[in-house]
């Protein structure tokens, strides 16, 4: 019978262990820094954080919570895609079956739905905090701009996801929303000067969003692809830029002494 330290020693000497962790860890400042540097997920993060930056009272942790919500939505969203067909015959019954039939379907769908509402709220509070603490000021102007784009993308994610259950609520929300697009100057056929610009119901922004002049099967497919593929991809890219710039612009903002 071997003692616990002996077993632990043996595991650490193992080739597999070594190939994953590469070096020993002794809980020194250097080793801790190495652990962050050497990790693909953590290396975006600064090696050292000031004590004042961790104070919840100043940042409220909203940026991090938004990112957490995003990860939650990606995971639940991917699982939901296994149970969903973006066609007008099946979409609604698929959503119903999530409640009635799919194992853990109720918690899955509710996590996604409420998580989405949560993310929209949190992202707005994040922006509010950044504004109120003046964190948009130099040298962080660029990152503020990225943040605004991310806010819009979050709204668009929410908007496109609204149609996917194919219920009355989503149907009319998208009808109203895209009609607003149709009335936008220079983009929609109902906007001013549209006749001089040859904008018709069949070539304006609403048509592009719906894949037709009405909310139908094409609109469902388009919103599905925007929701599940295109917007998340753009968001992820912008998020990386966002996080990277947080570091490069002098770390997470903190109270001025």
């Amino acid at each position, binding site marked *: 019978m071997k003692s616990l330290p002996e077993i632990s020693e043996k595991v650490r000497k193992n080739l597999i262990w070594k190939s994953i962790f590469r070096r020993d860890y002794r809980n020194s400042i250097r080793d801790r820094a190495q652990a962050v540097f050497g990790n693909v997920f953590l290396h975006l993060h600064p090696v050292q954080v000031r004590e004042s930056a961790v104070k919840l009272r100043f940042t409220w942790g909203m940026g991090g919570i938004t990112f957490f919500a995003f990860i939650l939505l990606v995971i639940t969203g991917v699982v939901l895609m296994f149970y969903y067909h973006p066609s007008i015959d099946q979409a609604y019954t698929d959503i119903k*079956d999530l409640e009635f039939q799919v194992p853990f379907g109720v918690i899955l769908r509710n996590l996604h739905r409420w998580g989405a509402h949560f993310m929209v709220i949190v992202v707005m509070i994040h922006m509010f905090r950044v504004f109120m603490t003046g964190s948009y000021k130099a040298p962080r102007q660029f990152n503020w701009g990225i943040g605004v784009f991310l806010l819009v993308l979050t709204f668009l994610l929410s908007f496109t996801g609204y149609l996917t259950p194919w219920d009355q609520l989503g149907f009319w929300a998208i009808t109203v929303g895209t009609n607003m697009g149709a009335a936008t100057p220079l983009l929609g056929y109902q906007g001013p000067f549209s006749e001089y610009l040859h904008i018709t119901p069949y070539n304006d922004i609403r048509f592009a969003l719906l894949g037709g002049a009405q909310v139908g099967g094409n609109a469902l497919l388009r919103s599905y692809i925007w929701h599940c593929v295109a917007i998340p991809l753009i968001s992820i890219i912008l998020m990386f830029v966002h996080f990277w710039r947080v570091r490069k612009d002098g770390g997470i903002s903190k109270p001025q002494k």
Partner: protein
Amino acid sequence: MANEQKNNSSNRVYIFVFFSVVLLALSLWVVWDDEFGLRPWKKYQQEFKTLKHDKLESEYRKAVVDFQRSGGHTRLAELEARLAKAEAVFQSPANQEKYKQLTTQFDDIHATAASNQKELQNARGKFLESEYYFTKTQKPEYKATMDLLQREIDAINLRRASIQKKEEAFKNALNEMTSATVNLKAEIEDMKKGLEELKEKIASNDKVAVEIKQVHIKDIDKADRCQSCHIGIDGKHQVSSLQPFTKHPASFVYLDHHDPSKFGCTFCHRGQGRATTSVEKAHGKVKHFDEPLLDGDMTQTSCLNCHGDIKGLRGAEQIGISTELIKKYGCYSCHKIPGYESIGDVGPVLTEVGSKVNYSWAVNWLLDPKKYFSTARMPKFFFTQAQAEAIADYLFSMSGTTRHDVDYANTQPNAQLVEQGKTLWSQARCNLCHTTGGRGGNHIKVYAPDLSKVGSKVNKEWLFKWLKNPNAYFPGTKMPRFRFTDQEINALVEYIVSEYKDDEAEARYVQPVEIKAASIKKGKELIQQYGCYGCHKLQGMEEMVQIAPSLKSQGVSFLRKDEMREKIGTELSSIGSKPLEMLDFGKLAKAIPNDRLSYLKQKLRDPRGFRLGLRMPDFRLSESEVNELAAVLYGFTDANVPVRFMVPSRQELDKMAGVQGYKFTGDFAKVIADVKCTNCHSIKGIGADYAPDLSIAGSKLQEKWIRKFLANPDVIRPLLQQMPKLGLTLGKPAAKVTMPKFNLGKQRVEDTNKSDVDVVVDYFQQELVTTDIPKAIPTITTMALPEQISKGKALYEFKGCRSCHQIGLDGGALGPNLSDVGNRLQPGFIFRHLENARKFKPDIVEPDYGFTERERIYLTNFLMTLKLNTK
């Protein structure tokens, strides 16, 4: 400072621990809820299994007790003892030795047989080879080989026969040794079989998996999971009478024709078939679900989805009765309803109404029809006095008359005429269709008006013309033309007018008053607004149609006659699935439940209650009629129905097959149009089911009897369905045809010079016959006729025919009276009828006695002797 920090962090540990515990508890709850909380059907299936297990178990125990009680137990023990003995005998060394020896010998023989067989195959192969070469080359050496081989084959075959014989002998010897035990074993198994089967049933029930049971209708992608809880619904045996375990009621009607694995449940019952999480959700009795579960008779409304002919459909009796209401009140006059397009006007012709009724009566009728008689079908339009007068003015002006009343109050009726009229009234059986003073009107489906107060409604001149020829005033009326003489008509008119008058009737226009043009114009506008032409034929509005509102908004105001038109009311073809948001609850949005059925019922109860400006009149339906009509309307849906479910009506099928519907021809058609036989009788699918079907009357009835009956109808069934005396002429001499009675039908005289009875009898014998009924019945040559008759009589007594049929004064009153059946029916019909009564009348109550052919001959011969002496 450092101390404080430490305190802080230990506080945080408690918070961390608290939230961890909460998260763990929540996770456990999620798992529990997903496994049990959201899947209540698991509990039901488990419970059902237990119930079924208990039932089978008790059956098994009962079977065991029965087995013991019937002495099976002792017999089994005895058999087993005998088996043991037989085994012992078989196992004795001497027998074993013998058995072994026999087996070895048998095996040897068997091996010989096998090698012999191989040899045979070999020789045959070689033979075929030589044959092939010989046919190809025709060389004689091959022929020689063939002959040689043939001889060889013959020799082998010979050997085979002897080997087989030996083999057989050994086999028999072996069987003889084991036969005692084998037979006993089989016998024991046989005795145990019933019990073993029951045991197996219990075991297989215990093995049934608890799982979702889903029916998927592929064509329309509909999924039902109802049977996950209603687990015993398609069962042959009732396991429990409680929901959800009970079996489907009357499943021999419903499920036998609608296999639940193909039709599912929600197709007829509606509800949310996919839902499995709670009873309310599954039954669709939750907010925002438009199709709540239908149960009881209400479910029959779904029959309308697929079945074209609802009348007479087994299991759809209630909805069949209810659909009659649409015909009764003529909903199709104002609303477009599929399947009811070609039905005629529900109200009488009004083109000459000014010459028919009193002006005061007309105004009062327009104000409130039910005040005149309570069974009036015409609805109340809530007209004001001035509006009612305006409409009456328009109608009277179209007939070219003035505001006038005729009042017979002070005239003295001719007593002699009245007396004669009264006799005619009862001979013609007017009360069969018309009610007077609350009596009569047994034949409800013709909707004849109540005549209790008719003397104060119509004038004598019109009544005379009407009775003389109803078709002249109202083409297509259901009123038959009785063959009365003018004198008889006068008597009837005198009787009706003096007997049935309204003492409270007002007659304000005994002195006629001219009608003002402004009033006529106003009346016309009202008629157009409320669409009176929907139910009545009106002069000047024959082609009146409502222009579709959708077209009106596009500026179309004039359409050609058969262009797109719309009825005055909303189209009802899919009212039963109209989206809830498209129903206007108006003022009552908060007062009544906001579902489709409640809307329909409220609309029928109070048609103008939802908001101002509605035009639908009030039919003052009883609550039961409201429910029935609402149920029918609820069934008019645009449901997605797979084509393979559709059962088109006979009419549609004929149309698809290019078959013309049956039409009466020649003089008979004229008689039908005149006497309206089809008001009561059904002939080849045309007509009502009030009186016997006449489709095969020519093969069924004897000519002499038809003639006699038509001239003087008599009771066959002692019910209230008596045939009226229509005054048809027996008329052998041609001169009779030119009697005044027929003055109106001049063409007939020119055409054929036949009396109507001749026409009817000829048509019966030529058209209404079937080859299914033989002209004569088979004869029995070995027995004298009187003996056959007495045997038939004995059978009649023995089978208890008299409990329903009457001969003389003896017997029951459910079936037809047979006293004169020998004069009435053809023997061939009786013969066939006794074989299978349902062949000619599928809903007959007569039981099937399963008579043999001989018995049927006896009975027929006996029944043909039953004749009343007429002379």
